[in-house]
């Protein structure tokens, strides 16, 4: 349904907790609203839930970080097209005492192998989120089956990034986290970044307009305006300019052309 | 309590087929395999005050509740002018329970509540409320929380509430048990007046003097059975059943 008369036009953005909790949206969305008069209502949930919500038509735009799932979303006709927006990276955090001795390793999978070897506590999100899927790929590369150790040193928290970090902090466990959440995260306890910079830790975000052909009420014009803005010079500059505690969290990487086929 | 209780203004005209005589046939009440009442046959005619007597636990209160349709009989029939005591019949009766159940409101509020269940204008109800309070000698206590009243005051309030319903049949379960002698006599007068205006009275009491003053006929109940049903004079002079004789003499009724 179109926005009722008198109400400010708005769109619903289905997105992830990692982006929302980092404060990025608070910083950049007012600029978009100021330019277009369109308010953006962010629903921050797990990537899986965000995609499910978008499939149900409960959002106009989807902005998540699970490339394979995003492309499937578009391929199945739920989304119009996927555009790169930005990326950040994952880091491996762990106790400063580093019982598994991974500090400074260049390879994330090598670090994982050592953690497994040392049977050092590791807090996994265990929630099929983008971060969790990335983590599972790293275990695979390290030739470790962590599930076999589930409930022992391998702890699947089945929770969001923040909750998982809270758990890691309280248990002095290792964890994989996106840098944005980490920098914004206040309850670090004894944890610190131990491994970073491996290209395998690259974490791209994509933005997709929910397909109005499937969900006629989707606000195509406003949604597209948002995608145009965030992938355009102004949005990209805003992303680049966002700093938290002195760190740049997200790196814009939009290209102008669509990555996926558009469907009628 | 005023020496001569004022006669109460009646509310609407009474309507419907007469409730009397009431015919009770083969009445039995059992619970958990125990027979508490019956088998029992009884006719209640109009124009008489029927006093129900009998030892503790004989089933007097239970019989009143059955007559009023509050509990269904296990077997047998109760017919008021041909109809069983379902709502249309019960609405034309009022019962004063052995222990008063008062609402958590003021004294006046309790009577007003009963009045509100009957047709009538606001003004008529207000007038009737005053008359009833006066009758029960509760006017000075009108605004007291009803549950704070003394035992006797509560009993008077329960009676006033029943009269507020302007019933054609009044079932009274030991309504003066906690009353002082003057209040007892006043209540007896009020009951007599109601009777004179055509209200059928069924009155349970252990007070032999009171029974003598009020009763036209006595039904004597013992262990759930009627041992006699006789005109009052006969009953008090020469009771037919040994049970009633023992009862009147203050002897244990076996």
């Amino acid at each position, binding site marked *: *349904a179109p926005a009722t008369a008198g109400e400010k036009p708005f769109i*619903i953005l289905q997105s992830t*907790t990692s982006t929302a*909790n980092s404060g990025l949206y*608070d910083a950049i969305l007012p600029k978009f609203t100021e330019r277009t008069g369109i308010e953006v*209502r*962010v*629903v*921050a*949930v797990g990537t899986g839930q965000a995609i499910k*919500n978008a*499939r*149900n*038509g*409960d959002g106009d735009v989807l902005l998540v970080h699970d490339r394979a799932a995003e492309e499937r979303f578009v391929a199945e006709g739920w989304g119009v097209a996927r555009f790169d927006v930005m990326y950040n990276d994952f880091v491996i955090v762990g106790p400063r005492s580093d019982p598994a001795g991974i500090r400074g390793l260049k390879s994330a999978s090598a670090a994982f192998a050592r953690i497994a070897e040392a049977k050092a506590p590791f807090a996994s999100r265990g929630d099929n989120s983008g971060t969790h899927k990335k983590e599972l790929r790293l275990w695979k590369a390290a030739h470790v089956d962590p599930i076999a150790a589930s409930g022992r040193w391998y702890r699947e928290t089945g929770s*969001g*990034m*923040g*909750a998982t*970090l*809270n758990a890691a*902090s309280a248990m002095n466990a290792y964890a994989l986290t996106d840098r944005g959440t980490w920098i*914004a*995260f*206040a*309850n*670090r306890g004894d944890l610190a970044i131990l491994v970073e910079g491996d290209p395998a830790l690259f974490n791209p975000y994509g933005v997709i307009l929910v397909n109005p052909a499937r*969900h006629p*009420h989707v606000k195509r014009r406003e949604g597209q305006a948002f995608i145009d803005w965030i992938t355009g010079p102004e949005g990209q500059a805003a992303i680049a300019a966002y700093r938290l505690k002195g760190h740049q969290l997200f790196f814009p990487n939009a290209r102008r052309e669509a990555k996926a086929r558009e469907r009628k | 309590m005023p020496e001569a209780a004022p006669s109460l203004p009646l509310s609407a005209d009474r309507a419907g087929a007469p409730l009397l005589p009431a015919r009770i046939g083969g009445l039995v009440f059992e619970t958990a395999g125990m027979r508490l009442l019956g088998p029992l046959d009884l006719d209640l005619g109009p124009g008489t005050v029927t006093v129900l007597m009998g030892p503790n636990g004989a089933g007097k209160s239970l019989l009143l*509740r059955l007559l*009023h*349709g*509050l509990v269904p009989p296990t077997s047998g029939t109760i017919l008021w002018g041909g109809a069983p005591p379902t*709502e249309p019949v*019960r*609405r034309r*009766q*009022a*019962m004063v*329970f052995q222990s008063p*159940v008062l*609402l*958590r*409101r*003021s004294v006046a509020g309790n009577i007003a*509540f*009963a009045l509100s*269940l009957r047709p009538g204008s606001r003004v008529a109800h207000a007038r009737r409320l005053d008359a009833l309070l006066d009758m029960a000698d509760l006017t000075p206590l009108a605004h007291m*929380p*009803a*549950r704070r009243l003394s035992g006797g005051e509560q009993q008077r309030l329960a009676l006033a509430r029943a009269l507020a*319903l302007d019933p054609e049949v009044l079932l009274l379960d030991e309504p003066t048990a906690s009353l002082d002698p003057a209040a007892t006599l006043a209540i007896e007068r009020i009951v007599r007046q109601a009777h004179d205006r055509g209200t059928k009275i069924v009155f349970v009491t252990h007070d032999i003097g009171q029974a003598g003053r009020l009763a036209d006929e006595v039904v004597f109940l013992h262990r759930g059975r009627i041992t006699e049903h006789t005109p009052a004079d006969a009953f008090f002079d020469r009771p037919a059943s040994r049970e009633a004789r023992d009862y009147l003499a203050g002897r244990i009724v076996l």
Partner: protein
Amino acid sequence: MQDFAEAFRLAARLVLSGDPTLMEIIALSLRVSLSALAIAVLVGLPAGAFLAIARFAGRNALLVVLNALMGLPPVVLGLLVYLALSRAGPLGALGLLYTPTAMIIAQSLLITPIIAALSRQVIEDLDREYGEQFRSLCLSPYRRIAVLVREGRLALTTVALAGFGRAIAEVGAVIIVGGNIAHVTRVMTTAIALETAKGELALALALGLVLMTIALLVNGAVMAIRLGTGDERHA
């Protein structure tokens, strides 16, 4: 430990600063939970009263279901409401998802069984005392319920306060159907969940303190009304 101290300081600062965002969140929390409570009382109390006085086949089974519904997880209820209100769902066309209305719906559904189950017990106990008297008076079921509710008002107020507590503290359902959207559907509990996820534990606790203060004020107001009307007098 320092978290506790900081939480108190933060809470005081938040409240004293009169931060407009916080005020907005508090206002929405109260609006949602009090509306849900009103609906739950309007529906649950008569339903509970009816169950208290009615006797019919299957009543015991129904009571078991009702009591069990007190254990309906908010997340599950949230999901059910989500599926109903989702664009893909039967009521999607109403566009209610991610609005305060959706949150009110979810919370009412959540606490109605609680109000109904507890009122049922309160009123059934009362009816044991009044039942025969009321049948003698030939009260209509409607009137009988109204009077029993009035007689039991003290206990029923406590029941309502239990429902309010459940609603104001609830996060699982409102976060699913409300979406915790800033300035639109963010309430105290979803804000607390968000700050917790951010690791801002002191801030989360501070918001919790503010929420408890609100709950205290609401309960205090109810107590003041009780004492003021001298309701205890008739008890």
